[in-house]
């Protein structure tokens, strides 16, 4: 081409000027751990399933939940959702209602009849699971997925353990338990009910591994002096009768006293109210703030008219007279002492809910299984008891005694059992850095309060609230900040002054280090903290 007068250079593009050489800091896309995931005792990838739910991929969301937890509908009702307490949105306009979302997706799965993927058996190895509570069934579920032959023994009439015999119907409808357990038996897990185990030792000859998920169902003993009254019950026994043997359920009368401060005490009191009692009181030794029961449960009980009498112990019972000692409690040093004050209460019946322990009688005759001072089975870091091939988990091991921790433990136990049968070592998960609120750029989020749900005030065995509708699921799941995980908002791409972000055809983003000058705008404007600036020493 003929050049204009005095021009010696050809016209060119600035693309030959690789401005990436100016850089001292480089941006990198990272995936960080959202706080919900980091605190979930089951290890659910909550952020991931929320992101699927908000784009209407409900079944995919459900599949992600069930990678960690086979009971979404149950957990969505009874889990104490530590995830929501740490949710970064809590510091903005209220945590995402993860618990209700899980329940809603779980209910959708039941309504639509979604099933677990079918697993072809790949192993001749046989595993016996003792106990069909959340821990036992979760272990069965994961071991079945891994291809093992799994049989579950259950001493009660129906499977479910404490989910059925410890959680009242108004918190967990039985059809939900039945539906979620059926999905596990549909996979080929055999559950044999009303099967008492005489000798565990001999079962070891028939099975390669035994997993003890026997729970803690023996009511703890008290030293209350009792005279002239048959109307004293253990909460656990009452729950069992309510479920399986209602014809023999004892009359509780109009005035009921419940002794204890845990969730079982609250459940017992609320159940008594539903069975016709008119005056229900809970007696607890310390103050209401020290009750081990969950706060929402206490509030619901109070709202139903249950009275909680704190700083009191039952000294003795004689007929309808309950002799109470008032207590002094030093909260700072956790010192309880009897005060000189006493009082007498009247009640038609007394329900004891002062804790449960592991029924050691099942374990008799096995040398090597040790019971710790706290009354639980001792295991090593791989959840194995002192006897090779016998593992244990759930309430029988843990001190937490929640469905969630039982499921979390069983998930780990399944991995340990698999490693044991393969003769390999379990590689522990390395957890990444957790995203805190400061790492987010909340300029890009609108304040949107959580989607509310109506609660009935009826006191009955029906559930008090309902699940979210499809649209409500989408709205509530959309509130997730997606902490530490790119949600393709394109801020980095749109705000880069140097066009140094490449949008790949699959929607993923890459940084073009040829031109990235390292200004850091992308990292600052990333709403969810998924870009990190690091020193560029290349």
């Amino acid at each position: 081409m003929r050049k204009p007068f005095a021009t010696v250079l050809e016209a060119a593009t600035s693309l030959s000027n690789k401005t990436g050489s100016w850089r001292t800091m480089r941006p990198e896309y990272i995936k960080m751990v959202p706080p919900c995931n980091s605190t979930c005792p089951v290890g659910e990838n909550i952020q991931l399933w929320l992101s699927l739910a908000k784009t209407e991929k409900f079944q995919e969301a459900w599949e992600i939940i069930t990678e960690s937890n086979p009971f979404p509908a149950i957990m969505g009702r009874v889990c104490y959702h530590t995830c929501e307490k740490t949710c970064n949105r809590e510091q903005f306009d209220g945590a995402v209602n993860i618990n209700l979302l899980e329940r809603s997706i779980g209910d959708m799965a039941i309504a639509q009849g979604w099933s677990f993927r079918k697993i072809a058996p790949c192993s001749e190895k046989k595993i016996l699971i003792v106990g069909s509570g959340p821990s036992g069934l979760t272990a069965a579920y994961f071991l079945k997925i891994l291809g093992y032959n799994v049989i579950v023994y259950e001493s009660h009439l129906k499977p479910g353990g404490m989910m059925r015999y410890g959680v009242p119907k108004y918190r967990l409808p039985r059809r939900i338990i039945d539906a979620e357990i059926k999905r596990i038996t549909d996979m080929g897990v055999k559950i044999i009910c009303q099967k008492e185990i005489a000798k565990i030792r001999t079962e070891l000859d028939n099975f390669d591994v035994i997993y003890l998920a026997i729970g803690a169902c023996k009511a703890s003993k008290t030293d209350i002096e009792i005279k002239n009254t048959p109307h004293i019950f253990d909460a656990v026994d009452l729950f069992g009768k309510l479920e399986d043997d209602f014809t023999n359920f004892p009359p509780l009368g109009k005035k009921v006293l419940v002794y204890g401060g845990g969730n079982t005490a609250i459940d017992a009191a609320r159940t008594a109210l539903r069975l016709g009692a008119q005056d229900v009181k809970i007696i607890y030794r310390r103050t209401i703030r020290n009750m081990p029961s969950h706060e929402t449960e206490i509030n619901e009980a109070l709202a139903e008219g249950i009275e909680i009498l704190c700083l009191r112990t039952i000294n003795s019972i004689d007929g309808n007279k309950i002799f109470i000692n008032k207590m002094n409690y030093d909260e700072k040093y956790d010192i309880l002492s009897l005060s000189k004050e006493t009082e007498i209460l009247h009640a038609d019946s007394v329900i004891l809910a002062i804790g449960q322990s592991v029924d050691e009688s099942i374990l008799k005759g096995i040398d090597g299984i040790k019971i710790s001072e706290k009354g639980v089975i001792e295991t090593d870091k791989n959840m194995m008891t002192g006897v090779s091939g016998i593992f244990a988990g759930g309430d029988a091991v843990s001190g937490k005694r929640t469905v969630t921790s039982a499921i979390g433990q069983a998930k780990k136990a399944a991995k340990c059992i698999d490693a044991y049968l393969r003769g390999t070592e379990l590689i522990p998960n390395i957890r990444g850095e957790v995203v805190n609120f400061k790492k987010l750029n909340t300029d890009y989020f609108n304040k949107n309060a959580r989607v509310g749900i109506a609660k009935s005030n009826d006191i009955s065995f029906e559930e008090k609230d309902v699940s979210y509708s499809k649209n409500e699921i989408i709205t509530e799941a959309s509130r997730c900040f997606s902490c530490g995980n790119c949600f393709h908002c394109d801020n980095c791409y749109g705000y880069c002054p140097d066009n140094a972000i490449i949008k790949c055809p699959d929607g993923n983003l890459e940084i073009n280090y040829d031109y990235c000058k390292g200004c850091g705008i992308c990292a600052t404007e990333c709403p969810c903290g998924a870009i990190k600036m690091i020193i560029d020493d290349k």
Partner: protein
Amino acid sequence: MSNPTLGNRLSKDDITIQSSSNRNNSLTCGHRACQGCGEALGARCAIDAAHHATGGKIIIVNATGCLEVFSCSFPESAWNVPWFHSLFGNAPAVASGVAAALRITGKEDIRVIAQGGDGATCDIGMGCLSGMFERNDDVLYICYDNQAYMNTGVQRSGATPPLARTATTVPHKNYLGNDPQIGKNISQIAIAHEIPYVATASIGNIQDIEKKIAKAIHIRGSKYLHIHVPCPLGWGFPTSETIRIAKLAIQCGLFPLFEAQYGKLYGSIPIDDPIPVEDYLKPQKRFAHLFGKNATPDAVSVLQEVANSNIVKYGLNGGDI
């Protein structure tokens, strides 16, 4: 105030052209703007929007300034659009000529944009710009306002805000930086010409830039768009904070976003909860002398007064204009 993210929106109206992988990248990679340059981002965003609205039928006339220097050091050009540069002061006149040539050859579907920094607009090219407005030539003039002559070393311009430190307004003893009594409000000067369209925009609100360009580009006659583009180097803030600073300027009321037609204001973007001007000034070194050991609280109140009067004047509190 919360801003929507650039892409991934439920409402299609909120999705920006900048988030699209099909954007023109009118100002492409390899330009020599400093790290975190607001002007480079503002220019790409505005010209991409114009390119999108006209199907690529645009001609750009660029005044001398940062934008011209960093995008076109001969023979390399970073522009993916027809682009023209003559002198510092004559961009509006050249653009008027281009528009006249297009009219005479019957190619009025090709739209003309003149653009420059605040120096070319307020000071050096003021005469040509005023003439272009007066004749109502069919040109969209875009001013990228970084509030000083950054390219030559941060000297004061007619758009430098009160009390800012520049290389020519260095605070000393009783002198607190740029004198509050002088300077030009160039958007108001444009409105006074009663041209068809005048608007302000900011890179703190990309959606708004794109909407205003799309509106302005098809209006026949003179249009003026004033885009606030923070400069990390000249203002003294970290390169990563450009967008944040732009947003703070909007949120405190010092940079109002408004529109005017034929000499009359008719709309503005309200700010829900105005922040104190300190929040915007403190992160910038050019205002550091207002906050240090020898700080004079009265000085900041001068700027707060400006913000307060903007809020009332432009209806940023949702009130009437």
